[in-house]
């Protein structure tokens, strides 16, 4: 088992490393390919997005049929809090249009304006969950319409990856939502808000036994903090940033990465980084031994030991003292 993991680590790091070196080499050529990439992206993305949207719609429809009526009528029914990050040029303007057209939509959404959906850092998507949010929306311009050409494509990559991260941690990925709204689509904006609000209602309050995840508030927060920490990790961020290029562009050898392979790589990185992040967070609270960490996280001690060693090498943990037989670590942050 341990051996298997080591091999994987090497492989993954190998890919990352080659990736980076190639990146450095290719960098000079990148600008030229952006245009071509954009045109191609228009088609590919349009397809992908369509498929995704249809799925979301179906899911929501099905849920609507379920118990919408009952819930809405109930006194004190769960009213989710939703934070939306809207790009200034299309979706914020679309939301303004909903206003000028006096289209009523649920009051659950609170909007934060950013210049482009591409400004929304993976960590920022998770920030609201640490406070009272039950859902987060990222809205940008339609594919090929981004005011900055490609920002929305990056937003899409990030949301896809953060969703995978949430799912790994047992948090409903449906709490995070990405879509496109143009400046002319006031009505569509209002609809999306209503749909997403409903979707989050179905998921239940974030961090509450009755929610779909069935996590306590404390556990929910802990997991979100782990996710947020992972979003700060270089490896994760690099993969997110390169996802589109890796899947759509050929490398110098004329090869494209298969989606399946990328997902394997990503889930490997997520698994590793989640564990490391969890260890870091525990060690930030005070000195703790590997054994204790393993107990809290329900992980085999060997695995914890391995990652603790890694974190120590990376300068994130240091030895605090030795209690009894076991060394205790604290975070250096």
């Amino acid at each position, binding site marked *: 088992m341990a051996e298997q993991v080591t091999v994987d680590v090497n492989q993954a790091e190998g890919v990352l490393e080659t990736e980076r070196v190639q*990146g*450095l080499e*290719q*960098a000079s050529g*990148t600008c030229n390919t*952006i*245009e071509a990439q954009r045109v191609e992206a228009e088609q590919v993305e349009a397809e992908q997005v369509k498929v995704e949207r249809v799925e979301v719609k179906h899911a929501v429809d099905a849920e609507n049929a379920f118990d919408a009526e009952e819930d809405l009528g109930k006194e004190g029914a769960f009213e989710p*809090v939703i*934070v939306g990050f809207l790009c*200034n*040029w*299309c979706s*914020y*303007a679309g*939301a*303004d249009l*909903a*206003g*000028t057209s*006096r*289209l*009523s*939509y649920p*009051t659950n959404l*609170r*909007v*934060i*304006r*950013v*210049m*482009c959906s*591409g*400004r929304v*850092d993976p960590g*920022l998507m998770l*920030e*609201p969950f640490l*406070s*009272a*949010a039950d859902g987060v929306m990222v809205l940008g311009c339609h594919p*090929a*319409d981004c*005011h*900055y*050409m*490609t*920002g929305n494509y*990056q937003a899409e990559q*990030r949301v896809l990856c953060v969703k995978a991260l949430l799912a790994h941690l047992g948090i409903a990925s449906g709490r995070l939502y990405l879509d496109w709204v*143009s*400046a*002319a689509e006031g009505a569509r904006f209002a609809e999306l808000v209503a749909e997403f609000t409903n979707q989050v209602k179905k998921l239940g309050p974030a961090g509450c036994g009755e929610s779909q995840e069935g996590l306590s508030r404390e556990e929910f927060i802990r997991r979100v903090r782990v996710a947020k920490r992972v979003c*700060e990790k*270089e490896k994760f*961020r*690099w993969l*997110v*940033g*390169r996802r589109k*290029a890796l899947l759509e562009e050929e490398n110098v050898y004329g090869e494209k990465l298969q989606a399946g392979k990328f997902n394997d790589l990503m889930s490997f990185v997520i698994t590793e980084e989640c564990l490391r992040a969890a260890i870091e967070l525990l060690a930030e609270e005070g000195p703790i031994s590997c054994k204790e960490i393993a107990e809290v996280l329900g992980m085999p001690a060997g695995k914890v030991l391995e990652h603790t060693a890694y974190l120590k090498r990376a300068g994130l943990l240091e030895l605090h003292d030795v209690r009894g037989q076991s060394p205790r670590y604290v975070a250096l942050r």
Partner: protein
Amino acid sequence: MQQGIESSARIGVYVCHCGLNIAGVVDVEAVRESARSLEGVVVVRDNRYTCSEVGQKSIADDIRELMLNRVVIASCSPRLHEKTFRTLLEKSGLNPHLLEMANIREHCSWVHYDDPEAATEKAKHLVRSAVARARLLQPLSRAKGRVIPKVMVVGGGVAGISAALYLGGMGIKTYLVEREPSIGGHMAMLDKTFPTLDCSLCILSPKMVEVAECENIEILSLSEIEKVEGQVGDFRIQVRRKPRYVNEEKCVGCGDCAAKCPVKVEDEFNRNMGTRKAIYIPFPQAIPPAYVIDEKNCRYFTQGKCKVCEKVCERGAIEYDQTSYTETIEVGAIIVATGFQPYDARGLPQYGYGRFANVITSLDFERLICADGPTYGKLKRPGDGKVPKRVAFIQCVGSRNASSGDRGYESCPEMGPRAEAAEPKAYCSRVCCMITAKQAFMVLEKYPDAEVYVYYIDMRTAGKGFEEFYRRGRSEGIVFLRGKPGEIEETDDGCLRVVSEDMDSGCILDLTFDMVVLAQGLVPPHGLVELAQKMNLSRSEDGFLMEGHPKLRPAETGIDGIYLAGCVQFPKDIPDSVAQAGAAAAAAAVTCSKDTIEIDPLGPVIDAELCIGCKLCEMLCPYGAIRVELTDKGPKAKSIEVACKGCGVCGASCSTKAITMKHYTDSQLTAQAKAILEVV
């Protein structure tokens, strides 16, 4: 350092009633009071209209007397008034970037009118969030960008021509880009204009000549926009110049070449009803007044031999070796005036356009009745050349078709999928009623004993002299029938049977006509989607380009330095197009009159300690505005400020979080996200 600023923040919070627009739903006093205790807040006030002089003065006074260093305004969308209030701050001696707005109108009172309580709570949160952000705002200095005092007008119809003439007249160098061989647009195809019945080309042609003669205007015909870069004051536009194969300077338009050219093809200027040669001039008054070779049909280009035109051209103007090339042009402002295309009436097969020879559209009619047209002004029906005695006009073809539009299309599977331009539209195309009134009138004018019927839903004649014109038509015997025909059938002799319900009498009318004219609507021109993407312009739901503000900035767009004129914004008649062209030209001239333009300083801030030179930012930046350079501390990212537009992709992607964005810093956004959720 940020700590320091935070603790010394002196914030004024102003909650706007906006008359009853906000106060009618949101409890403004409650919102005001909830902001009073927030950290750093020195003063809270509510104003009936914060943007009014009184409202602005109270802010200016507070800045001075209470030494405010941050201002939060809870009112309408920042997209509406951010500029207004930034200017106010600047005048009051504060850096304009120390302003933050909470949108409690468009995002709150106007959409939550049915739940005042929740709206008030939401407004409180939005204000908290704005205050949290304001605390962390940093003064920023704006970069100065250069202004190239030149303008590009895209589209050479009457709107583009007028805009170019205004600009040229002001002494501003103007490029008029037209994709066809000649400027003139649709107006050049019209026979007469309503309601004055002026000959269309007689009034347009002098303007076209003026354009050709104006030393400040350069016409780029047969040219299309390929790429647009840069920002207001400093655009770089790549224009694809297609070959004419005739030297514009040398050609004097004698026409010897066309006379001898052996190839005859359908003439698109005459709506394919007449013919022209493979070397041709679209219409006699064309500008530039030069012939053009249609390479798709030219025998030399298709079969490799002929060159008759070269032989007969005394001036040696024929140049078969011309090729297409791109030219980069720098301008300070752009006016988009690419007009419209007529609705493709084949999209409504129940009317038989394209199947029945004697069903024509209003634009076909213009060519048929024009003295320069294929029939030299005789109204002959295309099927058999007979002069029609009974003519019907059908209104709103492709317009005002919200739901019933698809009727009948499925029943004609042989027609294939409906083209974009054949998709019936929900909006009213605005000019068709008057076009029909004019054309009906023209039929009677030429053939006083003809019988003319008009099928309409409503007659919309809002305009100077329009209603009078329509009344005159009625009194001269044009029959107006309220009701849209369901279907047209062709009879054996090529006549057309039209069955409809007369809404006024309730009778079913079954009438037969010699010719039917469909008043086709106006739809967005082909290629507009791509052009909008190249320029980053938004389109409205109807597909036309979106204006900066529907009331107050009808000739502007969401992008500084790009303006709109004519039908590309929405269908309109000639005087309205010309008027808008004037507005667009004035706006473009204002831009060009400045020496420099202030550019929002929203670029990245790079922490060289954290940067590992991974180049992710460089790879993702759409503008090449961030580069990794070798420093003595190894490779480090460096921002190229003039190229940066401030989208923030680099900041949100940086693998080591070494980059944050000015004015949208990580800490500002995080603080906002926290405060917007704070449970009070």
